[in-house]
C-alpha cells in the first residue's frame, strides 16, 4: 500500500513536471495533505476539469465543489476553496483560478484568507512564465492590502503567500522584505521565501539587499535556490563593465560557505561565457590525480586550516566531545587523566590508529588472530614509511594473538582503554594534541563528533578531517596486502588559485539539506575572469 502511494505520487509528479526525488527522499515522513488525497474519482475529476486551462462555468464549479466536499470526509465548506485553488497551482491555470474567484463572488461566498493566499501563489507561478499585466498586478495589490489589513501580525504561511504575490509585481516588491521580518516572529523564514525576494532584488538591481539576505539565509543554514544565482548572473550580465567584479563576488560567496552550484547555474555560466568571451571563460572539467585540473593543468589549493583555527579546534575538543556534560558516559576521570599523561610523554606521532576500527574493517565475525593480524599489517605499513604511530584499543585486545600483539607493541606506542569506554574521542584528542602534521587512521566518518562540536567548529573539523584521515579501503585476498585510502589534501570547495583562475565544483540538482560530502565532486568548472583591480 505504501509503495502504491509512492508510485501514484511519482506518476503525478511526472505529470506536473516536478522532480521525482523530492517525493522519494522523505516520503515516509511526509503525510500528504488531506485535500490532496488522490483517489480514482478525484483523479477523474482532476483530468476532466482541471487539465484544460480555460475558465469553467458557474454550474461546473458548483458541481466540482459538491463532489469534493461530498466524496472526501476531510474536505468540507471551510476548506474546499483552498483545496480547489491548490489544485490549479501551475502558472497556466491562472484563468481557471480567476474564474473560480468569480464564481465565489456570484454565489456570495466570501473567500477566506487561505484561499486568497493560494491565489497569490498562482499569480507567482504565472509570473515565472510571463510578465503580468498591469491589471493583474493591481489585483495582486488589492488582495495584499486586504490580507494585511485584517490582522496586525500575520502568521508564517500568510506572510509567505504575500511575499510570493508582491514579488510578482514590478513596483511593490520592496514590501516583501517587511513581510520577511514579520515571518521571524513565529518561525524562521523558508528557503523559498528568502530565495524569491533575493532573486527579485538581483533582478531589480538592488544587489546589496540581496547579498544581505543571502548572508542571513546562510546563518540559518538554509541553502539558496538556483534561481537566486541565475538572477544574479543575468543582472550582472546587463552591466558589462562591472560584470567580472560581480561574478568574482559570487564565486567568493560560494567558496566561503562551501556551496556547490547546480547544473542549471553551471549552464548559465557557460552561456554567459559564450556571450562575453573577453570577460569570462568557462570550461567544464574534472579532476585528475593529486588535484590537478584537466583543463588548465594546475593543482588545486591545499586544504590546510590556519594555526588559529587548529588551536581553537584542539582546545574545544576535550570539553565538547569527550567530557560534554558527563565524563562518565564515555570514560572515567582516572582514565582521561592517564591518557593525557601518556600523550604528553609519547607525543608527537605521525599517525594515530584506531585499533578496533581497523581490526574489524574486513568483517565483524573474524577470529581474534585475524583481527590482530590486520592491525599488525597496518602498523607495518607505517613502519615501512618510517612513521611513528600510536595505536588505541581496549583492554580485551591483550588476549589477542601473542605474536601480532608483540609486533605491534614493539613497533608502536599502544594505549588501551577500559572495555566499557568509547575510544573514538581519545583518537581525535591524541591526533589534535600531537600537532598539525599528525594524521589518523579510521574508517569512521566521525559524524557524531562533528555534530557535538557545534556549528562554528564543524566546518573546521571537517576540513581538518579531510586532510588527515587515512582509511583502510580493502585487503587483497590471497596475498593479504592492504589497500589504504590516503586523505584528500586539496580543497574541495570553490576557490581561486594564484593565477586568478577559479575552480568551481558542481552538483547535479538542488537539495535543501545536503549532508556532509566525503567524495570528490565529479564535475568542475574552470573559470577565468578578466583582470579586476
Amino acid at each position, binding site marked *: 500500500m505504501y509503495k502504491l502511494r509512492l508510485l501514484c505520487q511519482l506518476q503525478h509528479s511526472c505529470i506536473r513536471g516536478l522532480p521525482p526525488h523530492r517525493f522519494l527522499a522523505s516520503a515516509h515522513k511526509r503525510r500528504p495533505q488531506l485535500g490532496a488525497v488522490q483517489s480514482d474519482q478525484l483523479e477523474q475529476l482532476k483530468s476532466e476539469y482541471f487539465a484544460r486551462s480555460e475558465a469553467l462555468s458557474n454550474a461546473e464549479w458548483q458541481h466540482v465543489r459538491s463532489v469534493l466536499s461530498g466524496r472526501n470526509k476531510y474536505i468540507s465548506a471551510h*476548506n474546499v476553496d483552498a483545496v480547489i485553488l491548490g489544485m490549479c497551482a501551475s502558472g497556466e491555470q491562472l484563468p481557471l483560478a480567476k474564474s473560480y474567484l468569480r464564481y465565489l463572488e456570484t454565489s456570495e461566498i466570501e473567500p477566506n484568507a*487561505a484561499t486568497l493566499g493560494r491565489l497569490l501563489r498562482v499569480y507567482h507561478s504565472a509570473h515565472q512564465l510571463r510578465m503580468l499585466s498591469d491589471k493583474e498586478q493591481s489585483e495582486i495589490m488589492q488582495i495584499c492590502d486586504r490580507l494585511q489589513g485584517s490582522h496586525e501580525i500575520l502568521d508564517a504561511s500568510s506572510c509567505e503567500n504575500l511575499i510570493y504575490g508582491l514579488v510578482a509585481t514590478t513596483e511593490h516588491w520592496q514590501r516583501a522584505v517587511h513581510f520577511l521580518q514579520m515571518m521571524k516572529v513565529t518561525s524562521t523564514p523558508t528557503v523559498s521565501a528568502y530565495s524569491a525576494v533575493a532573486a527579485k532584488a538581483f533582478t531589480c538591481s538592488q544587489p546589496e539587499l540581496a547579498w544581505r539576505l543571502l548572508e542571513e539565509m546562510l546563518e540559518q543554514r538554509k541553502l539558496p535556490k538556483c534561481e537566486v544565482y541565475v538572477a544574479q548572473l543575468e543582472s550582472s550580465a546587463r552591466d558589462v563593465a562591472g560584470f567580472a567584479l560581480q561574478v568574482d563576488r559570487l564565486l567568493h560567496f560560494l567558496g566561503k560557505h562551501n556551496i556547490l552550484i547546480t547544473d542549471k547555474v553551471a549552464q548559465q555560466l557557460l552561456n554567459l561565457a559564450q556571450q562575453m568571451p573577453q570577460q569570462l571563460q568557462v570550461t567544464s572539467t574534472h579532476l585528475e590525480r593529486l588535484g590537478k585540473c584537466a583543463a588548465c593543468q594546475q593543482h588545486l589549493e591545499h586544504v590546510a586550516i590556519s594555526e588559529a583555527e587548529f588551536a581553537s579546534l584542539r582546545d574545544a575538543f576535550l570539553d565538547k566531545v569527550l567530557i560534554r556534560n558527563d565524563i562518565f558516559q564515555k570514560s572515567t576521570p582516572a582514565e582521561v587523566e592517564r591518557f593525557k599523561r601518556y600523550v604528553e610523554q609519547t607525543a608527537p606521532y605521525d599517525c594515530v590508529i584506531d585499533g578496533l576500527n581497523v581490526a574489524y574493517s574486513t568483517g565483524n565475525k573474524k577470529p581474534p588472530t585475524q583481527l590482530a593480524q590486520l592491525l599488525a599489517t597496518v602498523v607495518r605499513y607505517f613502519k615501512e614509511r618510517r612513521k611513528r604511530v600510536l595505536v588505541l584499543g581496549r583492554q580485551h585486545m591483550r588476549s589477542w594473538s601473542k605474536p601480532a600483539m608483540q609486533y605491534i607493541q614493539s613497533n608502536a606506542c599502544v594505549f588501551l582503554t577500559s572495555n566499557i569506554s568509547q575510544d573514538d574521542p581519545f583518537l581525535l584528542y591524541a591526533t589534535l594534541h600531537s600537532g598539525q602534521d599528525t594524521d589518523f587512521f579510521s574508517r569512521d566518518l566521525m559524524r557524531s563528533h562533528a555534530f557535538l562540536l557545534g556549528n562554528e567548529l564543524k566546518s573546521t573539523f571537517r576540513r581538518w578531517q579531510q586532510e588527515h584521515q587515512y582509511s583502510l579501503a580493502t585487503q587483497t585476498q590471497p596475498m593479504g596486502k592492504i589497500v589504504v585510502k590516503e586523505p584528500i589534501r586539496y580543497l574541495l570547495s570553490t576557490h581561486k588559485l594564484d593565477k586568478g583562475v577559479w575552480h568551481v565544483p558542481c552538483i547535479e540538482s538542488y537539495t535543501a539539506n545536503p549532508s556532509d560530502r566525503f567524495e570528490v565532486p565529479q564535475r568542475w568548472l574552470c573559470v577565468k575572469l578578466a583582470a579586476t583591480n
Partner: protein
Amino acid sequence: MLRNLVRWQACRILLNKSAVAQVAAVRHLSNPFKQNPHEKAATEEPATRIKKPGNPFAKATVAQELSFNVEEPETVIDKPVNPFGKAPVAQELPSSQHVSETKEEREKRLKVLQLEVDIAYQEGRRVPALEFFQEHHWARVLELPTKSARSKYYAFLWQIEMKKESNQRKKEERAVETERRVAEIRKERAENNHIVYGLAHTSMFLRIYDSTINHWQNNRLTRAMQFAPKLVLDCSYDQYMTNRESSYAAKQLMLCFAENRMNDEPFDLHYCNSNFEGNCMQILQRYIPTMHNPEFPINVHRECFTELFPKKQLVYLTPHCREDLVSYDPDDIYIVGAMVDTVNNEPLSLAKAKRLGLRMARLPLDRYLQWGAGSGKSLTLNQMISIMLDLKKTGDWDTALQHVPRRKVVDYHNEREALNKRAGKFNVRIDHLLKSEGDRRTSTAFAEPQKLRHRKEGMDFKLDSWATGKRKTKQSS
C-alpha cells in the same frame, strides 16, 4: 595525603558525634546531588547504616569511594566533574533558550499562533478547529520551539478531535440502533400473550467489585513493605526525555505498580529521585490520583536511593555494562532506571552507576534467548518488574524471561512443533533428535527414542530385586 586527611575527618565525625547525628551526617553527606556544595568532609556510609561501627581504615574500595565523593560535593548540583577543565563547563540546558518575554509579547504571539491555526484549518491541513483548543493546549503550543514541532502537535490534537467526532457519531448510531431494537422487542411482547421466561439480569452470584480486589491487593502491598525485598525505580531521567517519552514512562511506572501489586509475593517498590513538578510525575498522578495520600501503599521519594539504602546493597541494572546478572540475591536492592530511551541513546544509567560507584549488572538476555533481527533489546519497565518478580519466585531465568515479548525473540518452539507434526505424518519419530539439539554428540539418527510413558518409570516389575530389601538406584539416563 589528602586521603589521610579525609580519613581522619571521617573518623572524627563518627567518633565524636552521637549515633543519630552520625546517621544524619551520613545521610546529609552521601547524596552527590544534594544542594550543598560546601561540604568538605568525606563520606563513610554503608557501615553506619547497618549499625556496624564505621571502619574508616577499610580497604581500597572505600578509599576510592571517598575520592569520588570528595570531588563531587565541591561542585554544584548536576555539574560535570571536569578534573581537567580550566573553568567549570557551563551547562547548556536545551530548553532554556527562550528569553523571558513580557505578558504583552506573549499575548501577541498567542494571537499570531491562533491565526496560524485558523489559516491552516482553512487550507485543509491537519489542525483542529479553533474551538477545540483549550488553555493548556495553548500553553503547550507557546512553549514549542519551531513551526514543525507545532505542526506535529496540531496533527496530534487533530487526531484526538477526529476520534472524538467519530466516537460521537458512532454513539448516536448505536443509540438509534438500540432504540429500534428495544421498540421491536416491546412490540413483540405486547402482541404476545404468554409469560416471558428468563432471569432478567437476576443472578445468584455476588458481584465482586473492583475496589474489593484493590483493597485486597493493597493489603498485600502493606505486608510487602514490611517483609519483602526492595526494588528501586530511579526516576531521575526527566530532563533527558521528551514530553512524549515522559508520558510513556509514567504509564509504564503505573503498570509496574499494578504488576507488582497483582503478584502473590510483591516487591517493596520505591520510586526514588522523583521530581513532582516534572511531566512524568504529573502524569503518574493522573493515573494514580491517591499517590500522595499517606495511607496509599506506594513509596515515592524525592531523595536519591543512596540516601535511603546502603550503597553496598545496591545493584544498578543497566543494559550498557558488560557483566550479566547470574543469580538473584535477595539481600541486594536492584535499581531500574525509569527512562524511555527511544530518542536519547546515551549510556546514562551506566554513567550514573559509575559516578555513584555502585555495582552494575545487566539481564543475561543473550545467554537465554535467541534475539530476533530487527527488534531492539529494550524492555519496558513493567516487563522488567515482571521478570524480577518471577526471578525472585522461581530463581529460574527461563521462566522469568517468558515476559520478554515473543515478537522480539526467534521462537524455535513453534518451528519444532511444526517439524514434529510433519514427521509424525510419515511415522518417523524425531523428538529424540529435537530434544538434545544442544548436545550434538548424543543426538544421532541411531539413538534410541525415549519411551512414551515417562510416568511409569520406576514402577515396572523387576523380579531380581523384588522383595530383596535392596533398592536398586536407577542411573539417570
